[in-house]
């Protein structure tokens, strides 16, 4: 394809057409670039600017002032520092769990029969496209102390009293898994499709146990997909907002919840903006490191 392109552009560069082709490219890119500029780059820049204004007692914004009070507030507040630490630990833990669970699921889908595969993939796509609120509300219905799971366990005599699976760390992680696992499954699955599954049979023929075949043949191929899935899971868990509010308790506040709290309840704009900026930077740095590692490893690019 690149050969054809090269020949094509060479031919065009001989005449006026080359100008047209460049213009065409620019015109076609314009809507997207304009959109990202207006709705993403400029607002994010404005957020950085807001994070650098003076704090006021009356709330809201003091325009035109410069100050690092917002950032100083973050460092001085033990609450915020604690929230940040908790969020990172939560994001890392959830990511590891999500990658483990999602990879197993993807592997099952890939090894399964055509029907199994279709059903499993359809389940993931459906779960992915179900709105957060619905998914987490559903999880609440199942896992709460009066919920379905506890009813079943109590009725079966498996537990003496209801397990507390919501309004604590367990609920938070469970809920967030519902959010990120589908993305891990799809990214792992898409790398697995590039692998010929007769390789696994070859390994089995050569005497490898199924576990060993999976570990030595499939795992190396799946790693780039697991890394991409992990990166997505981390980015979204670090920014988790809905799951902590619905399934966690006051003790499990994440950075995103704290941003909302500062902004909507205390109207303290500079620290809220500063916290949002810091969160974004942390997420992007982790992503950059992850993707860099992936590229060095020679893995797939993009999402």
């Amino acid at each position, binding site marked *: 394809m690149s050969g054809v392109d090269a020949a094509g552009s060479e031919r065009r560069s001989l005449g006026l057409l080359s100008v047209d082709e*460049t213009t065409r490219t620019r015109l076609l890119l314009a809507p997207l670039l304009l959109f990202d500029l207006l*709705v993403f780059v400029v607002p994010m820049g404005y957020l950085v600017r807001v994070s650098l204004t003076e704090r006021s007692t009356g709330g809201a914004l003091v325009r035109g002032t410069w100050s690092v009070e917002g950032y100083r507030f973050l460092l001085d507040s033990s609450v915020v520092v604690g929230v940040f630490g908790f969020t990172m630990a939560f994001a890392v833990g959830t990511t590891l769990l999500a990658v483990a669970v999602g990879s197993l699921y993807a592997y099952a889908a890939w090894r399964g029969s055509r029907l199994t595969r279709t059903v499993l993939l359809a389940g993931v796509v459906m779960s992915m496209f179900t709105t957060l609120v*619905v998914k987490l509300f559903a999880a609440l219905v199942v896992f709460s102390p009066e919920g379905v799971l506890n009813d079943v366990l109590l009725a079966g005599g498996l537990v003496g009293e209801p397990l507390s699976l919501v309004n604590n760390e367990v609920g938070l992680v469970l809920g967030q898994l519902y959010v990120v696992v589908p993305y891990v499954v799809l990214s792992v699955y898409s790398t697995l499709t590039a692998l010929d599954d007769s390789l696994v049979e070859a390994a089995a023929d050569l005497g490898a146990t199924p576990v060993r075949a999976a570990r030595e043949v499939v795992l190396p191929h799946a790693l780039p997909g697991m890394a991409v899935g992990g990166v997505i899971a981390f980015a979204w868990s670090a920014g988790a907002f*809905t799951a902590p509010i619905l399934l966690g308790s006051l003790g499990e506040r994440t950075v*995103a919840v704290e941003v909302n709290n500062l902004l909507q309840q205390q109207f303290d704009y500079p620290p809220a903006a500063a916290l949002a900026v810091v969160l974004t930077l942390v997420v992007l740095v982790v992503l950059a490191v992850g993707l860099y590692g992936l590229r060095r490893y020679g893995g797939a690019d993009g999402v």
Partner: protein
Amino acid sequence: MLFAFLLAPIAVVAVTSFSTTGAVAVPPPGLSTRWYEALLASARWQRAALNSLIAAGGTTLLATVAGTAAALAVNGLDDRREAVVLGLTVLPLLVPGVVLGVSLLVFLGEFGLQQTYLAVVAAHSLWATPLAFSVVRASLSRFDPRLREAALDLGASRPRAFVEVVAPNVRSGLFAAALIAFVVSLQEFVMTLFVSGPDTRTVPVLAWNSLRGSVDPIVSVVSTLLVVTVVLVVAVGAVVAGLERFATDT
């Protein structure tokens, strides 16, 4: 087991939506459609459903047009520029929704544009456009560019070459991109929570508001209907584009 973990809660909600009582219990004490009737009678929910459709329609249009145009253009770029465009396009997907929501709220607030449909569509497109872009790009990469060259050599104008040669060949990709944009908008919640207002809030936001008050059986009904909608959309997409491609492209 994992499959059950993933989907059981949604099934439970679907069952409870037909319950006779307001309490969420499984098995429900009796079956009825009273909450469905309550939903149909509710002006708030009708408004939210209309808002969701407006937002999803606007997002589909904006994301598909911008995404497709850009996907057509990136082939004409050198590698470095292509990487920059790709990075910029995909970046919003990786920035936490709360941060995007806050930045849009604060920025659009300066122009009094918060809580408008425009704000909601802009926010949704932030996530729908990169997905539409990559879906169209993936299907363009399966298209033989020599076909377009041939059409141009035979005297077709560029728009005509696109309409008659390129578009039919990537039709399923365009369709899948539009569907994905639609679904992304339908289910987006965090950003919408920040940028929408009482007149523009979408179904997920109203569901959230209702849940914050108390357990509202109508939320079960709405959840069920939303899931059914998404299943239908995904099913249509799967038939048109093939489930496997649908799954791997997104």
